[in-house]
């Protein structure tokens, strides 16, 4: 069940009612049952078992690590528990990829032998809850949090349905205390939660899914295009991905608010970042903090004697692994490598940055910031080519044909624009929709600029006009083709 399905629109109020009527000491149980039912709707019984296993295993290991006083033993316990968690992730998500590539290698040396391919497995939510389990165990090891004594509450921390499928990846220290405290009905919080949910639904079904019209025809048939259509599709994808994921996150945060839980904010205007490092401070924050805290920092610490080279190497490895986390394909590996290169390069550049800016007397220039935002956005867009394209060949075609618009007119005409318009045959209508969407979006953004707080201080008629506007727009402008959230595949 995903947030933009009819089932969820029925499921959420039912859980809310059950939650409100249950006695406070059983409320965690209502949410736990709901969360497993929610995951059960994916119709993958093996995933439910894996979730239960990861939960029980991490719960026990957390207790052992917490109780153990010998540092050497604690370290071994942590290592063992992290390895088991990673092994599950690798087995479910990467086995097919590994075997395929091994077969490719074998093919060179002995073409007759090959390893039988394992069945492809669905791994929805797995990489999110495995990462959460690892952070729980590491935080206990480092003494940041204690282990959770209550198995039920820990299971809820692992499976809480608003954040189960695509995060945010929560830390024990911020979420477990919230599950412990007695629930108090909070009208304002619920109101904000509902608005956040509606806003997220709008971003997903009206904005992101509509942008897909400009992306999918091109990216699903890349070889037919050159130049401008490739550029439009890539820009459109940058915004589709953002609104898709930010839409999801708002719906997750909004759903959680109904039950008095505040989840971590995942985005902070990522495309206004002034550097790649800044981008990772603003994009998928719960994930980037995870890889920086649990991969980058230990590596940087280990390689500190190498100075700046150590930092650059640690950044490179961290973002390479981040690429692999996103999926078992060479495209994601390249995407990670590109971000790794950008980050490593910035580690070398950083000491000179301010000096250079000062030398040219541009350290306080507005134009420099605008330039930095533009460059960062384009670097990020470039990496999206690999993120979105289906194969390496496709990505390579895009990269090599991106600037083919200086060729003669005939060439352009034959290999792109006409097809782009034809493929978007009702483009006129889409354009109209899009213009409506953008104007509505602009107005809403202005209203929204000071966050929901200011909206709630407005008079009733104004508030309800906004609510109805969002509702009417969602109902009338939503894209009705059934789509999933992009990050569901990770």
């Amino acid at each position, binding site marked *: 069940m995903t947030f933009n399905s009819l089932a969820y629109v029925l499921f959420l109020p039912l859980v809310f009612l059950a939650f409100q009527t249950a006695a406070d000491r059983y409320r965690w149980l209502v949410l736990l049952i709901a969360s497993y039912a929610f995951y059960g709707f994916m119709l993958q019984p093996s995933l439910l078992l894996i979730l239960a296993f990861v939960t029980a295993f991490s719960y026990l290991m957390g207790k052992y690590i917490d109780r153990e006083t010998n540092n050497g033993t604690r370290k071994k316990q942590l290592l063992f528990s992290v390895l088991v968690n990673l092994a599950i992730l690798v087995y479910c998500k990467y086995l097919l990829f590994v075997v395929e590539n091994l077969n490719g290698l074998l093919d060179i040396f002995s073409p007759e032998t090959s390893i039988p391919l394992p069945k492809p497995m669905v791994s929805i939510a797995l990489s999110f809850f495995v990462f959460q389990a690892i952070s729980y165990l590491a935080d206990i090891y480092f003494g940041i949090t204690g282990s959770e004594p209550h198995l039920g509450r820990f299971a809820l921390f692992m499976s809480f349905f608003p954040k189960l499928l695509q995060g945010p990846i929560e830390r024990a220290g911020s979420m477990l205390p919230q599950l412990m405290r007695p629930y108090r009905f909070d009208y304002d919080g619920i109101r904000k939660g509902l608005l956040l949910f509606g806003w997220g639904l709008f971003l997903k079904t009206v904005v992101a899914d509509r942008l897909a019209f400009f992306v999918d025809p091109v990216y699903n048939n890349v070889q037919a295009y050159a130049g401008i259509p490739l550029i439009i599709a890539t820009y459109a994808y940058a915004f589709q991905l953002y609104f898709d994921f930010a839409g999801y996150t708002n719906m997750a945060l909004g759903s959680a608010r109904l039950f008095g839980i505040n989840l971590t904010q995942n985005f902070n205007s990522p495309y206004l970042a002034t550097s790649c490092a800044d981008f990772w401070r603003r994009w998928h924050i719960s994930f980037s903090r995870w890889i*920086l*805290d649990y991969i980058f920092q230990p590596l940087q610490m280990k390689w*500190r004697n190498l100075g700046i080279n150590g930092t650059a190497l640690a950044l490179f490895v961290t973002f390479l692994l981040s690429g692999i986390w996103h999926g078992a394909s060479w495209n994601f590996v390249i995407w990670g490598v590109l971000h790794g290169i950008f980050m490593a390069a910035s580690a070398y550049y950083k000491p000179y940055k301010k000096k250079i800016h000062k030398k040219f007397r541009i350290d306080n220039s507005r134009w420099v910031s605008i330039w930095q935002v533009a460059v960062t956005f384009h670097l990020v867009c470039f990496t999206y080519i690999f993120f979105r394209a289906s194969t390496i060949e496709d990505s390579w075609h895009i990269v090599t044909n991106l600037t083919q618009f200086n060729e003669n007119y005939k060439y352009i005409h034959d290999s792109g624009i006409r097809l782009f318009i034809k493929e978007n045959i009702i483009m006129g209508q889409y354009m109209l929709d899009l213009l409506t969407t953008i104007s509505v979006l602009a107005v809403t953004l202005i209203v929204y600029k000071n966050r929901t707080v200011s909206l709630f201080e407005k008079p009733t008629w104004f508030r309800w006009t906004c609510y109805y506007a969002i509702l009417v727009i969602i109902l009338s402008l939503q894209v009705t083709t059934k789509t999933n959230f992009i990050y569901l595949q990770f």
Partner: protein
Amino acid sequence: MKKPPILERMTDVFRDVLDNETVALTRETTANDIEEWDSLSHITIIVAIEKEFNIRFNLADLKPLRNIGEFEDLIALKTGSQD
């Protein structure tokens, strides 16, 4: 010559690493108070502190620290009789 107090030397290191002369540390300061002090710059600061005080940390020493005060105490403990 007597060296300046730990907090003062820490402040200098922070200013130097974060390239921000306005950083002012108190015992209550946390990473939330200083914009540039984040997951990315954290270890760079730690390593610079190690150099300044000629000490060595484990990640396990550092992770539980909640504010500059606790960090200062850890440095005092590691440097032992220096101050």
